[in-house]
């Protein structure tokens, strides 16, 4: 008995994983699990979303460091297990299975584009394992164990439509990548603009890997909209934006960009003057945001940028920690039950989870890219927006 306690003490002091491995056989599994809380991260470290993936991963590391510097979560250290889903369906499925089946994580977090999310959810849903998803997405998910910390279209589009009609113009032309998010967003934009007295005059969706947007700009010149709203994403956004500039298009452009993407993937200044709806901007002036950015840059480099997806990931881990502490348990169902009753003072402002659909009450801002084409100034703040999902009542 005495030696047993000594060993545990050693472990708690972090005497090393080697010790754990060496003596692991003599411990019941439950004792080892009790020392840390395992957070499984499914991140697109490689593949199409690699740029955003790195930032997201670093935001989770920052949140874990902050928690561990205090008391961990309810006294347990946070241990991150990072897996690269390669921005593929197969990768996301395999890595979710590995995290749940082999690593026995307490919660799964991460993924960026829709295919990663659907694939991960297909595993977590069946395993009844909590899955925190940080990216703004098309909505339509309704699963007891799925928690979204980013916005759905109505949280961004509904408040923004009247502002667009009032400050930018009435007619909008939409260009999007040909997949779920831009198409669902377009439905939301069409409905919201009509209500606000505006109109979508055209919408085109381009297959991934489109090399030439020339014909699109020709169509736009013909239909003379007041605004162009682009939802061409990822690497195609670079192509689209470069060509938009080269064709000398005059319309204000709403584009799905952020600070990280602008800095790492775009030629300098190309994004200048574009608008974007986001739940978070680096220029938000609050102590929480300052601490967030300072902490991030201290760890990962003074010139690094953060973005809305990363911030939502960071919020997700903190919300999980608060809920687990409140529940006094790491059981999925108990954490879930406590989740709607906690609130986190996030960099974007206060956030919480709506228990009726497990989506986040997020802030909604319109940003306008500054002349350097990297940072944004907040031109309009709509405050905190509740997620309303007629298709989902949990």
């Amino acid at each position, binding site marked *: 008995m005495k030696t047993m306690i000594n060993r545990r003490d050693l472990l708690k002091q972090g005497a090393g994983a080697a010790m754990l491995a060496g003596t692991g056989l003599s411990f019941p599994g439950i004792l080892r699990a009790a020392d840390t809380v395992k957070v499984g991260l499914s991140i697109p470290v*490689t593949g199409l979303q*690699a*740029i955003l993936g*790195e930032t997201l991963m670093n935001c989770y590391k920052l949140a874990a460091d902050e928690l561990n510097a205090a008391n961990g979560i309810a006294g347990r250290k946070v241990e991150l297990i990072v897996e690269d889903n390669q921005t593929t369906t197969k990768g996301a499925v395999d890595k979710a299975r590995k995290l749940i089946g082999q690593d026995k994580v307490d919660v799964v977090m991460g993924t960026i584009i829709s295919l990663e999310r659907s694939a991960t959810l297909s595993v977590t849903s069946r395993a009844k394992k909590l899955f925190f998803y940080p990216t703004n997405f098309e909505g339509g998910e309704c699963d007891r164990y799925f928690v979204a910390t980013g916005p759905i279209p109505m949280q961004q589009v509904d408040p923004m439509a009247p502002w667009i009609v009032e400050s930018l113009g009435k007619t909008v032309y939409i260009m999007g990548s*040909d997949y779920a998010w831009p198409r669902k967003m377009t439905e939301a934009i069409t409905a919201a603009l009509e209500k606000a007295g505006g109109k979508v005059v055209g919408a*085109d*969706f*381009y*297959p991934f*890997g*489109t*090399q*030439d947007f*020339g*014909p*699109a700009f*020709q*169509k736009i*010149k*013909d239909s003379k909209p007041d605004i162009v709203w682009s939802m061409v994403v990822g*690497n*195609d956004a*670079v*192509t689209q934006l*470069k*060509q938009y*500039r*080269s*064709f*000398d298009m005059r319309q204000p452009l709403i584009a799905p960009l952020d600070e990280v993407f602008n800095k*790492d*993937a*775009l*030629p*300098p200044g190309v994004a200048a003057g574009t608008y974007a709806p986001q739940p978070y901007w680096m220029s938000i002036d609050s102590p929480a945001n300052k601490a967030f950015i300072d902490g991030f840059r201290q760890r990962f480099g003074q010139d690094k940028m953060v973005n809305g997806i990363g911030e939502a990931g960071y919020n997700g881990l903190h919300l999980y920690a608060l809920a687990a502490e409140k529940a006094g348990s790491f059981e999925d169902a108990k954490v879930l039950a406590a989740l709607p009753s906690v609130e986190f003072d996030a960099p974007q402002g206060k956030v919480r989870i709506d228990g009726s659909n497990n989506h986040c009450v997020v802030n909604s801002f319109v940003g306008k890219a500054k002349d350097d084409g990297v940072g944004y100034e907040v031109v309009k703040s709509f405050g905190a927006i509740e997620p309303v999902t007629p298709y989902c009542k949990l």
Partner: protein
Amino acid sequence: MDLAVTTLLNALTLISILALVGLGLTISFGLMNVTNLAHGEFVTVGAFTVYFVQSHGGSFWLGLVAAPVVGAAVGLLLEGIILRRLYERPVGAILATWGVSLILQQGIELTFGLGAKPVVPPLDGVIDLGVSAYPVYRLILIAIALLTLAGVVLLVARTRFGLDIRTVIQNRDMAEAVGINTRRTYAVAFGFGAAVAGLAGALISPLATVLPQMGVNYLANAFFVVIVGGAGSVFGLIAGSTFVGGLTSILNYQISPSLAQALVLLSAIVIVRFRPHGLVSIGGRA
């Protein structure tokens, strides 16, 4: 009028890119009977050359000149180290070039890091053509492509090297017997195709997304163009590029881009069904 001119120029831009990328493929696929799956990487190499030169303070134009040189060097290495041993084993060549393609992609990613690289266009703005305004850079791209293709036609038709190439294609053994160094001819032809693909990559770089994986997008299109047009001839290449590029640009304006792509593919299948050797098939190569 405005519409017609813009559509024509959009089509010409696309045709130019397709023809330049396809040129090397029509040489290796059509003439040497090698299915080179690493051809797209020559485009990538060209684009990254421009990025490299620009990020070290050089101008775009310097990059544009350097790109075909680097492309040729990579092409000659690939030919000399690997393809040379596989001319008699076409299936082996497919596997080997696919492997090389992966190695080049990952090598570029390891060297330059993840994600898209910024390339700054040398010229901004549009030029007023009287009836419509069009980006200056695209006009330059079209001009360079036309000059390059004209040069290739002259090279094949009028020079000693062109004669050698044509002889080697018709009958390699006989060419060897009359004293043509067929090994060297193959190597030079392959390197030349790689150089033009590198040039295409450099020309595309200010318009497109410069990524280690960018070549893949162009590889499929290039095969498409070469097969529809008729492998092995420059005129077939031009016919194929005009068909694919022209139709894509016109349809893209009329209907949804995803549907347009499907329709172009469908019509290409129909063409290949009725003209198995492409729009311009060269005689004697049944």
